[in-house]
Structure formats: structure tokens, C-alpha cells
């Protein structure tokens, strides 16, 4: 059942990504060149709606979750490395599969690179865990916990921030 749900969720998500045009090279690199903010609009809208949804479920006691562990070393170094690679290939892991499915066959090379990167990461894994992971390691911590305020304040701030950012993008034609 879990597998079937995974497939159904993936099919719907893939269709949404394709229809929003966010799986295109021009949209991804366009965002990083600060020319086309389509992917930022898509991501931020998903985040605002998703955060309201999952925190509502959590407040109702239907689900419980803990954010991914915080390690400044891993997130800063890993995040920057990902960004560098992302700008070079023009796709992220999820969108690469979608792009292949809509005919952008040149994406097989970035996919080969991502798979090879998986093996290189596996070989580097012990060193990363020993040297990088302990730097600024704080475990699972959410922004509302850190600030000591209700999660709804943080979500409201996120929504208002997204609204003004979107208004700015639309006025500038980005």
C-alpha cells in the first residue's frame, strides 16, 4: 500500500511540476540568474500551503514530525556544494526525472552525474560524519522552538513575506 501511495503521489507531483513548467532548464537556471522567478513562486506557494496543512494536522493530533537535524557544517557546506552543482547542471534530483519524461533527453548526463555523486558520497561518508557533522550540531530544532513563539506566527510571517515577494516579482515581470 505504501508503494502504491508513493506512486500516486509521485504521478500527481510530476504532473504539477510539468504544468508549472518548473522542470525546465531555462526556469531553473533563470532563477539562479535572477531573470525568471517561476520556481521560487512555485516552491514558496507549496511551502506556505504545505506548512499550514501539516501544522493543522499536527495540532489536531493526526500526525507528528520532527524537522531534520541541524548541523551548521553539513547544511552550509553541503548546501553551497549543492547550489554550485545545481547551477552547472540546471536541474535538481527530482526535476531531472521529470525533465527526462518531457523529452529533454540531454538530462541523462546530469542524471549519470547525480548517480556517480551518490557513490562518491558513500565513499566520503565516514569522513563527513567524523569531521563535518559535529560542527554546529544541534539536533532537530524548528524555528518556532528557537524563537519561542507559536508556529502559527512563523507561518503567518512566511505567508506575508511570500506575498510581498510575489508582488515584487510580478511588478518587475520576473
Amino acid at each position, binding site marked *: 500500500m505504501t508503494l502504491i501511495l508513493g*506512486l*500516486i503521489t*509521485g*504521478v500527481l*507531483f*510530476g*504532473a*504539477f*511540476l510539468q504544468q*508549472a513548467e518548473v522542470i525546465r*532548464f531555462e526556469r531553473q537556471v533563470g532563477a*539562479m*540568474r*535572477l*531573470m525568471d522567478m517561476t520556481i521560487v513562486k*512555485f516552491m514558496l*506557494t*507549496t511551502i506556505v500551503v*504545505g*506548512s499550514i496543512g501539516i*501544522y493543522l494536522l499536527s495540532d489536531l493530533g493526526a*500526525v507528528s514530525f520532527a*524537522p*531534520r537535524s541541524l548541523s551548521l557544517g*553539513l*547544511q552550509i*557546506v*553541503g548546501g553551497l*556544494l*549543492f*547550489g*554550485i*552543482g*545545481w*547551477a552547472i547542471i*540546471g536541474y*535538481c*534530483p*527530482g526535476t531531472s*526525472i*521529470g*525533465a527526462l519524461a518531457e*523529452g529533454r*533527453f*540531454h538530462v541523462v548526463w546530469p542524471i549519470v*552525474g*547525480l*548517480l556517480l*555523486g*551518490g*557513490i*562518491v558520497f*558513500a565513499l566520503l561518508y565516514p569522513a*563527513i560524519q567524523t569531521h*563535518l557533522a559535529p560542527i554546529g550540531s544541534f539536533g532537530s*530544532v*524548528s*524555528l518556532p522552538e*528557537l524563537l519561542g513563539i507559536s508556529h502559527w506566527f512563523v507561518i503567518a510571517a512566511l505567508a506575508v513575506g511570500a506575498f510581498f515577494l*510575489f508582488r515584487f516579482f510580478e511588478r518587475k515581470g520576473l
Partner: protein
Amino acid sequence: MKITSQARPYVYGALAGLLLTASVGIAGQFFGTSTTFPRAATGVLQLVGFDLSNWEFAQVRDGALTGLAFPNWQLLFVMGIGVGAFIAARITRTFKAEALPQMWVDRFGAKKGTRIAYSIVGGVIAMIGARMAGGCPSGHGVSGVSQLGVSSFIALAMFFAGGVVTARILYKGGTA
């Protein structure tokens, strides 16, 4: 009803947010894709008879990070993205066979070898970074930030910081 191109990212972004909520509520699963890549790659190595048993990576949670975790929710999710994008592209006639991205050709020319070399190097860097950070734009960006995790806010900011600077270096002087 026709969705204007201006409204598209917002409408489908909101639908994706509802889908994430449903997935968490029904299956208890957050979106994520990048873990599937090292699992697939190590799975292929195992399949061709490569012995990974003395790799520390393969010993974590009895091989949960390798191909031994298949089939699982995320593998089907990743495959589903391909199926869904293919169906949507076919129905809306937006499926387009493309040899190289136009924006790339405008900047770097139509030589295939150049694109292949950059793609493989860039792909390796991107995947090392994603797994090091603990997620990619779907796992950290969408799922993690929706959970308001501090780690995910930092990771997402770093993705864009690294991306914007690199794009600036790569495409400087390129036509807008």
C-alpha cells in the same frame, strides 16, 4: 477553465502543498528524492556483484542508505514524477525532444562533449552536496521548510546562494 501563464506557478504550487499535506496525513510521508540516487547507484554496484559490506555507508541501519532499501515509498515517488510529467506533457502537447538546452547553447555553444563534461562534474557535486546537507530542494526546500526546520531554512538559503553565485560566474556576458 484556462489558467493564465502568470497564475501557473501559484496554482500548481498550491496544489503541490495540498498534495504534501495529504501525503503526510495518509501515508506519513514527506516529499524527498535525493536519497534514491545513492541507493540506486549502490544498488547497481551490489547487483553486479560488487561487495560493499565493508563500506561504513552500507552498514548504516542495515543498509538503509543503499539499494537494499528498495522498493520503498521514495523510489516509487521518484518513478511517479517521471510518469506524471510524461502523461501531463503528452496530454498538453508540451512534450518536446531536445538535444541541448537552448540557454546552454547560447552561452557555451552546441558542442555535446562540453555539456556532457559539465553535466557529470556538476551532477557529482550536486549529489554530494545534497546528501551532505541532508536533502535537496524537495526534501529540505519543500518538506523541511514546511516543517519550519531551522536546518532546512539554512540549506535552502545555501542552495540559492551557491546557485546564484555560480550562475553569475558561468553566464556572465551571456545574453539575457
